[in-house]
């Protein structure tokens, strides 16, 4: 924690994340308008006192939609990464612990998955399933577990023959106990770092999908689909592109700063300076 405090950028990242999380959490309490309230008499109004971030093509308040969009974007990030982390830990632990042909098999699956351009795979899958927020979270999760699998496996391989593990094994600990009580707690650091960075990319993927119209479906707001709504009017309704763009940028930046900071803080080799 001390390392964290010494790095102002990490703190900035943390501050950004916490404030966006907070805003998303209390969105229903602070939104000035119903995010889906249509007003065809107030179409595409520029930012003003009445509408902090202006209104969109159907006269909906962009600020309110941004706040609700934050909930969607962040939820997609967390759930998708949750799924990816779960799968990653499970497969990585099996591969690293049992080694042999199980390891070979899992690693080859990882190689195959890594060789597929993920975004296009997601596009194809979403085009087949109906695009909904749940499908998106699951699909992003199911296509982004490979990095964590590799990390966990590598950690397990190096920890597997350490004395404390051998000792535990000699005392008769079952595989399950070895994996979850001894090996996993000692591999948590890289998993956390990788997950935090993963959230950033999940937020990006969701925005990208929504931008292409395959993400969160109307009338629900997400940053990606506010952005895509704004594309049409970019020449004179700049607020429809600027605010969601900034929000995506800040969130991804925040997670990346935090992730990098965490990595540096826990990396023994970066302790020197």
């Amino acid at each position: 924690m001390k390392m964290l405090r010494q790095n102002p950028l990490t703190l900035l990242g943390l501050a950004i994340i916490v404030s966006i999380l907070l805003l998303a959490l209390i969105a229903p309490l602070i939104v000035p308008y119903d995010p889906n309230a249509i007003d065809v008499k107030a179409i595409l109004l520029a930012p003003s006192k009445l509408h902090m971030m202006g209104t969109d093509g159907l006269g909906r308040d962009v600020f309110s939609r941004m706040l609700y969009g934050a909930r969607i974007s962040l939820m997609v990030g967390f759930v998708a990464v949750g799924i990816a982390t779960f799968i990653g830990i499970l497969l990585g632990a099996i591969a690293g612990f049992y080694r042999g042909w199980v390891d070979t098999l899992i690693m080859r699956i990882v190689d195959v998955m890594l060789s597929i351009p993920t975004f296009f795979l997601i596009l194809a899958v979403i085009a087949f399933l109906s695009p909904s927020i749940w499908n998106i979270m699951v699909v992003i999760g199911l296509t982004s577990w490979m990095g964590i699998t590799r990390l966990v496996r590598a950690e397990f391989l190096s920890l597997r023959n350490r004395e404390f593990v051998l000792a535990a094994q000699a005392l008769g600990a079952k595989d399950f106990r070895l994996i979850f009580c001894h090996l996993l707690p000692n591999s948590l650091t890289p998993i956390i770092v990788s997950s935090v960075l993963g959230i950033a990319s999940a937020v990006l993927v969701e925005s990208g999908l929504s931008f292409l119209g395959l993400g969160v479906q109307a009338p629900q707001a997400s940053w990606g689909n506010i952005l895509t709504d704004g594309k049409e009017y970019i020449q004179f309704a700049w607020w429809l592109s600027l605010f969601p763009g900034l929000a995506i940028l800040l969130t991804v930046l925040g997670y990346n700063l935090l992730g990098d900071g965490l990595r540096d803080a826990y990396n023994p080799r970066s302790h020197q300076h």
Partner: protein
Amino acid sequence: MMMPTKTTRLIQLWLVSFSVTLISACGSTDEGDKQTSGPDFNMAYPPSAGGTMVDAMTGEPSGLIAMIAGESAASAIAGNIFNSLLKYDKNLDLSGELAQSWDVSSDQRTITFHLKPNLKWADHQPLTSADVMFTWLKVTDENTRTPYGSDFKLVSKAETPDAQTFKVTYAAPYAPALDTWAGLHILPKHLLKDQDINNSAFARNPVGSHYYKLTEWKNGQYLKLSRNKNASQGQAKIDHLLSRIIPDKAAQFLELSADNIDSMGLNPIQYARIFPSRADLTKNIGLYKELGNSYSYMGFNLKRKPFDDVRVRQAINYAIDKQEIIDGVLLGLGEPVASPYKPGTRWSNPSLKPYPYNPSKARALLREAGYADTDGDGILDKDGKPFSFEILTNQNKEREMTAVLIQRRLKEVGIEVNIRVLEWASFLGRFIKPKQFDAVILGWSLSLDPDQYGIWHSSQQAPGQFNFISYNNPQADKLLEAGRLELNPEKRMQIYHAFSKILLDDSPVIYLSAGYGLSAIHKRVKGISNPAPAAGIGHNTYEWHIPKAYYRNEMNDQ
């Protein structure tokens, strides 16, 4: 073989609903801004020949034989190069183009076209009935990959008694026949007779008989047309038409602002919001709007419950506020419609009125149909199932926004709507053809003939055919059949008025709006009809002219 007709022409037009056709001027003559720095484009000049007009199109034609290419970009360019036997005049009445006159036999099965004398192709070869015969043979040839064949396959016998006469006989009277001949470009036999029309070099190097001929085609950049000295219809005024390929509407708009193009189609935002706020644009560029030949609608899958119940369909119709859609999505640049015909034309029944927005009537009808909110969740239900359905549409901003507005209004009467936006190919292939949908928001673009057999007749429900909503009403069927056999315009009008009435009462689709075609044309182009006749602003492009004083530095442009 008796193929359904007309339908083929409809599908390619389907995509381009809200396409822009040039028409009726409004507000192009305002004298507002007097502090001009550049030339004053409001001065009047006598017509003179010369100059270049530059316009923009979003897509590049695949070729310029319209019957093979099929896309609207090809038709737009080819329409300046090729003639048909007949054309629609400025009042939308049929008149001769290559044909000087035509006779219909007393049994209404035979049409004899008399060609104008001394017609020539752009390469000086004579244009005769043999070319017309050749074109008919090609369009009906099984080896020709054209979607337009079915209309012409109804011709049981075609003859050329002499070089000026072309005679077709139909197995039964076919009312839309003349309309079909107004849409078929006549091709030169002497250049195409030994060629595979599907892959002919002629498609990129066409020789026609109309006002212009193609002089240059730079892939991905532009097509340049120049005046045809042998034109069958006299000489156009403007020397060159340059069509630049600019796929993005926003980029086109920037080019228009920079005075690099003279005309383009606008979307409602550009027309109603951007233009009025830019004095530099309104000073030099005229705005035009016209009611297009298309409308948007929400169609039900009539094979699915509960849309087989007319009360439910009517209730939904009452629950949707069409004016709100016109105001919100089209920024007021559209009209409500009550029949599948262009308002104000002969075929549109003037006594029909759109369903007014009336949510309480909608609720009453739904109650009558057995729906009630028994569990108090705000959503109506019947037999324990909530009333919830999915609206499908393609990736089209205006349709997506329409869907959101409908979703909101239907929720107010207790119907839950989900919206699903799909890419066009999978929309057609996975949902429309196998009829896997509850409701769709789409548009129809229509030809000038009122025959809509392909869209509404109960026999046209097979996968890939156009009655994908499965509309089936024996009375409507009878009228559609009668309308194809009746050549008397008055009687024919009565038939389609009656048909429209049935359609409105049945409400198999909810008419949402007919949007205006919006366009901008630089004021250097003179001779544009104002106000425009029924055929629209584009009816007399051959009379448009650019005064010498207003020539742009054309050689530098390209």
